[in-house]
């Protein structure tokens, strides 16, 4: 199936022509036969319709563990509550921390799950669990959420990456790197660690025109070599090259300088804001999964000042992202998640810090497939335990999959062994789904 890539620029058409030209040179009859369809999909009204329907996901990964009490599950007045108050959201009776006034105002698309009990308060173990939706298994390398969504939502012949991960902070980066696991490298992440625009995409001194000429020469030679041969490796090589060419052609998608200044101003000057704008550009172009890692929330000391610094940024950027997606008609098809490896202790330590806590913490789901303006689950009055609606990692992931239209009971096969997307018997949280 052809992939719809929307970016709205004239360059897109040029690259598509170049792509088809390459295919013709290589004698790829199967691709050429689909040209009519590709051209039809390029019609603005068709492209717009399809881009609205394709499901996507942006994960705001709050690495290090944001405090649920200073974000989505405040406990003002409790001995554990800290200094901040709660404020009313746009849903009567639902209150969040006063550090999040913008999200409070536009709560209509968001569901808070306040009852995560994931039982792993270790950065590494917690990160792996919350990126995979399950505990690890020594003899099986599970794919993470991004790889599964790349597989389930991506398109086979995509010219854009299926899984992009921004993570600039060095702390915690290796606790949960993009992991395709047994799905294989095809669904691995494009990890951006130091530059917003992928590095080494294009070798210095070689122009795009040079690359195109080389591609045509490669196609000619490959085509001659391929004649009369059947080879998976040749096909794989061609696919990889085409994919890389496609990604190179979409380099501009990562470049937020191409956005109008007014849009850039809305997201704000911080790295997190810039990366969320890039994430919006990517999902708009058809990238099914983007993770934006915002590190590092591990506030063992000075928890309240840390959150006073970081939560307003999260509030502003998240609200802006949801607004932007909505205004572009993309929010119905884009799921925005906030998640971390765990939350933080209700107890306040001697450094005015909060420590690791996985027994009663929060995540949010916004947009695609979600019953907005709602809360699921409840913690007790001090926030020390789940009082109602306990949710583990598997159930959260089943809910995410269902929100995105994916059968959470689907099996992958590793050899002959069936491996379900979520642990057997896991059910999504129906109350969270639209």
């Amino acid at each position, binding site marked *: 199936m052809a992939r719809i890539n929307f970016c709205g620029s004239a360059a897109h058409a040029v690259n598509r022509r170049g792509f088809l030209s390459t295919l013709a040179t290589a004698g790829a009859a199967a691709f050429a036969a689909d040209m009519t369809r590709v051209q039809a999909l390029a019609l603005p009204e068709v492209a717009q319709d399809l881009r609205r329907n394709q499901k996507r996901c942006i994960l705001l990964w709050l690495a*290090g563990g944001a405090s649920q009490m200073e974000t989505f599950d405040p406990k003002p*007045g409790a*001995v554990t509550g*800290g*200094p*901040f*108050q709660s404020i009313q959201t746009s849903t009567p009776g639902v209150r969040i921390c006063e550090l999040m006034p913008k999200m409070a105002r536009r709560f209509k698309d968001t569901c808070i799950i306040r009852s995560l009990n994931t039982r792993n308060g270790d950065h590494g173990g917690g990160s792996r669990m919350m990126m995979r939706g399950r505990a690890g298994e020594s003899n099986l390398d599970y794919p993470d959420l991004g790889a599964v969504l790349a597989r389930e939502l991506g398109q086979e012949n995509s010219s854009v990456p299926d899984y992009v991960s921004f993570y*600039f*902070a*060095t*702390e915690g980066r290796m606790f949960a790197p993009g992991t395709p696991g047994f799905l294989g490298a095809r669904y691995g992440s494009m990890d951006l660690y130091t530059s917003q625009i992928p590095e080494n995409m294009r070798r210095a001194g070689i122009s795009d025109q040079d690359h195109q000429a080389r591609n045509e020469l490669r196609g000619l030679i490959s085509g001659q070599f391929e004649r009369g041969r059947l080879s998976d490796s040749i096909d794989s090589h061609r696919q990889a090259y085409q994919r890389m060419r496609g990604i190179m052609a979409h380099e501009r998608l990562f470049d937020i300088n191409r956005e109008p200044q007014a849009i850039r101003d809305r997201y*704000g*000057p*911080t*790295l997190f804001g810039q990366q969320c704008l890039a994430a919006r550009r990517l999902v708009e172009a058809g990238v099914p999964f983007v993770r934006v890692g*915002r*590190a*590092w929330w*591990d*506030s*063992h*000391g*000075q928890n309240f*000042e*840390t959150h*006073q*610094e*970081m939560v*307003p*940024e999260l509030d502003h950027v998240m609200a802006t992202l949801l607004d932007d997606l909505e205004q572009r008609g993309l929010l119905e098809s884009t799921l925005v998640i906030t998640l971390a490896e765990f939350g933080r202790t209700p107890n*306040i330590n*001697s*450094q*005015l*810090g909060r420590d690791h806590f996985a027994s009663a913490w929060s995540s949010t789901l916004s947009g695609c497939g979600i019953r907005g303006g709602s809360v699921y689950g409840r913690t007790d009055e001090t926030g020390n335990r789940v009082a109602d609606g306990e949710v583990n990692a598997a159930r959260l992931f089943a809910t995410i999959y269902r929100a995105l239209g994916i059968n959470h009971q689907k099996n992958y096969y590793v050899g002959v062994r069936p491996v379900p997307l979520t642990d057997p018997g896991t059910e999504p949280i129906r109350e969270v789904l639209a």
Partner: protein
Amino acid sequence: MPSNPRNLRVAREIARRDILFSVARVPNSDRLFVASSTNKVYEIDASRTNAEAIEHADHGRYVTAVRLVGNTAISGGYDGRLIWWDIQNRRAIRTIDAHTRQVRHLALSPDGTKIASVADDMVCRIWNVASGERLHELRGHEPRTPTHFGSMLYVCVFSPDGRHLATGDRVGHVVIWDAAAGRQLSAVEAPTLYTWDGVQRIRSIGGVRGLAFSPDGAQLAVGGVGQIGNVDALQGPSRVEVFDWNRRQRVLEFTGQNGIVNKLIWTSEWLCAIGGGSNGLVMFHDVGRRASIHQGNVPMHVHDAVLNDDGNQIYAVGHQKIAVLELRA
């Protein structure tokens, strides 16, 4: 009575369940007024370990500062309000919406006629203690840090003669004001007290937490925590910098064990820095001789402290405890 910091000992500990952020003392007594994480101001007799705490003003949010003028306690908190409280009749005299963000600190002028408040709206306001009238509004601190995050204005202090007022913020910017005219006189920078980690964790920690003028008012001590490798906790050296603030020159610095300096007390004999990390810390320094007198531990992370009239006893308040420290000669 002379004091000797080398003989520092903990005379008494009073256990608490709350966190105490500020303390004021009734002169010539052991009666303390403390600002609590339970949103209230309490009166406690620190001569007893099991004394009952008497409730006073209620801010409905963390109370961060309390000062005493005669029979009036003035407190500030996360609600942005200042409450004048009659401590004898236990009733509010006056409540003012003083700031749009949380009040961090209060300073009382030596003659007791003016009180200064600082808050995270990055404004210092000076008030007439008797009438509650606002006398000056001092704006000299940037609302945003250089990396575009909200800043915080932590501390203020009057000079011993009451003519000058100093204010210190998160990024280490300290402004010295003419307290009568409400005019900026000078500024000094202590950027080492602010750690911005733009590589590992992309956030910051630190700030100016303690300020004290020298007895002659010519120098200003600035306290906090030095540069921190891991901003997850207070894992950097406690740090004090002393400035000749007229010449805007740093003349001395000293560091101690890991933790943050939350309070500075400067007498004719010594400069005391007190605070904490996981544990409480205290340092005494002879500024004239540029020599350390004593460094040690106190039983808890200390947020505020006050000296007795004789200068040989410190009442320290902090994490779930009040400690009375003796410095007898």
